[in-house]
């Protein structure tokens, strides 16, 4: 049953069924009107689920928490004793992720597990997670630009299960083996798709391929301009507006920089860090290669669109547009890249 139909009124039952074996995260609207992922049953109830918009907060913290204790240490009788943290063994499902965020998860996988060195802390969390993606029907909001970064409103990369909104139900498709298995487990709530629903689903995919309706876009030729504009005065002009806060990086589904500190009580803690903070690149020697705001801002754009493309063949931006929506100074990544000179 890799292709089936889940009626919208049965979503609650299906989620509860999934919740028996795993922790399920669903997008809900919090008290301040932000849509974010919360744990079903503990912090959220099925009635609050909000699937008709792109969540304001990406699900990255589920796999890569903002604060993570790596281990604890204690001095016992003149010797240092380490206490490792115990990995959470429970299976996790993130339900209702948008394709941009799903792609972001696979981008993060490359960073933390793709190379020679595997980040065990990330891996142990990531491997427990299955992703149920909801395809977008065109741009989810005015800031979306995923087609410009190699994504698509119906992109399946990184998904275990894909859902398409076909009116009164979701057209459900198992992508990975794990996803197919999970679908078997919820077969009680699934039905066979009708030809009409098949047609609707094909229509969504067809529409996505044409990338119509996206107000924001980055032309590939402006990205290639980055090759020759590293020393441009343009970056000073752009950086003037920047406030050096970390909003863009902390809400970015692919930003993955972190800092490690020893904290009070004997804990080694890994926390998110932002390349926009002035001391991000501070060396132990007191030398700081990126003291100016313009250098830091430029680095972010270059990292997203050039360095990663050169080294891994893909952009580090998935076009979710959250940094555009949240920038206190109104900086727009699509505009910045398009106007590079």
């Amino acid at each position, binding site marked *: 049953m890799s292709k089936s139909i889940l009626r919208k009124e049965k979503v609650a039952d299906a989620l509860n069924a999934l919740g028996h074996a795993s922790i399920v995260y669903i997008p809900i609207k919090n008290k301040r009107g932000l849509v974010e992922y919360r744990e079903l049953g503990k912090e959220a109830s099925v009635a609050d689920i909000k699937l008709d918009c792109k969540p304001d907060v990406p699900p990255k913290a589920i796999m890569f*928490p903002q604060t993570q*204790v790596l281990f604890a240490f204690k001095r016992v009788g003149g010797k240092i004793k380490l206490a490792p943290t*115990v*990995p*959470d063994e429970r299976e996790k499902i993130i339900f209702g992720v948008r394709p941009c965020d799903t792609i972001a998860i696979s981008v993060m996988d490359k960073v933390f597990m793709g190379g020679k060195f595997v980040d065990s*802390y990330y891996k142990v969390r990531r491997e427990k997670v299955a992703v149920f993606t909801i395809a977008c029907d065109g741009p989810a909001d005015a800031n979306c630009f995923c087609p410009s970064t190699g994504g698509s409103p119906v992109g399946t990369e990184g998904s275990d299960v894909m859902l398409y909104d076909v009116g009164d139900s979701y057209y459900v498709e198992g992508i990975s083996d794990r996803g197919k298995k999970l679908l078997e487990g919820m077969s009680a709530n699934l039905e066979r798709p009708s030809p009409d629903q098949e047609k609707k689903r094909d229509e969504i995919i067809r529409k996505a391929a044409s990338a119509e309706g996206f107000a924001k876009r980055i032309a590939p030729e402006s990205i290639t301009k980055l090759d020759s504009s590293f020393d441009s005065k343009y970056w000073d002009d752009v950086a003037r507006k920047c406030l050096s806060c970390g909003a863009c990086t902390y809400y970015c589904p692919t930003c993955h920089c972190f800092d490690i500190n020893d904290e009070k009580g004997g804990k080694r803690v890994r926390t998110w860090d932002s390349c926009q903070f002035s001391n991000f690149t501070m060396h132990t020697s007191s030398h700081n290669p990126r003291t100016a705001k313009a250098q830091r801002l430029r680095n972010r754009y270059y990292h997203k669109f050039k360095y990663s493309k050169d080294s891994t063949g893909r952009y580090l931006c998935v076009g979710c547009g959250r940094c555009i929506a949240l920038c206190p100074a109104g900086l727009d990544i699509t505009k910045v890249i398009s106007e590079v000179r």
Partner: protein
Amino acid sequence: MSGSQAAGSTEQGAASAEAAEKEFEPKIVAFLCNWCSYAGADLAGVSRLQYPPNIRIIRVMCSGRISPMLVLRALKDGADGVLVSGCHPGDCHYLKGNLYTRRNLQLLRSMLEYYGIEADRFQMSWVSASEGGKFADVVKTAVEKVRKLGPNNKFKVIDSADGGE
């Protein structure tokens, strides 16, 4: 531990809670200025006046040195209460240090209250070098007030087992 006891029998639970309350000995960080309050504390000691041993004294040159950060840090790191003591207004060795600190810390006290942290966890007093008796009284009152409030649990953080927060 106490949770499971309480579940067993409410009566027993109430009794053990009461016992725990009796046993609770608050830890209070006391910032005393070098010229008046520390000398006052010294005098209390020399005069063999009794006061509760719950305070941990940190001597500073002037109460004007007490930044709100020090108070917050003490509370954050687990002190049940904080006491700041300096010279009486007009007697400051540095003329006005205590007056500055009074302004600063009064606002902090009000903000603490606004947060829902009991204002009595943070107390201030003026004790001169000759007021050994007053110092003993101040400590007694401060300790009693904090004892009534119970342990400062508001700033405790429990890490989840797998380290994520």
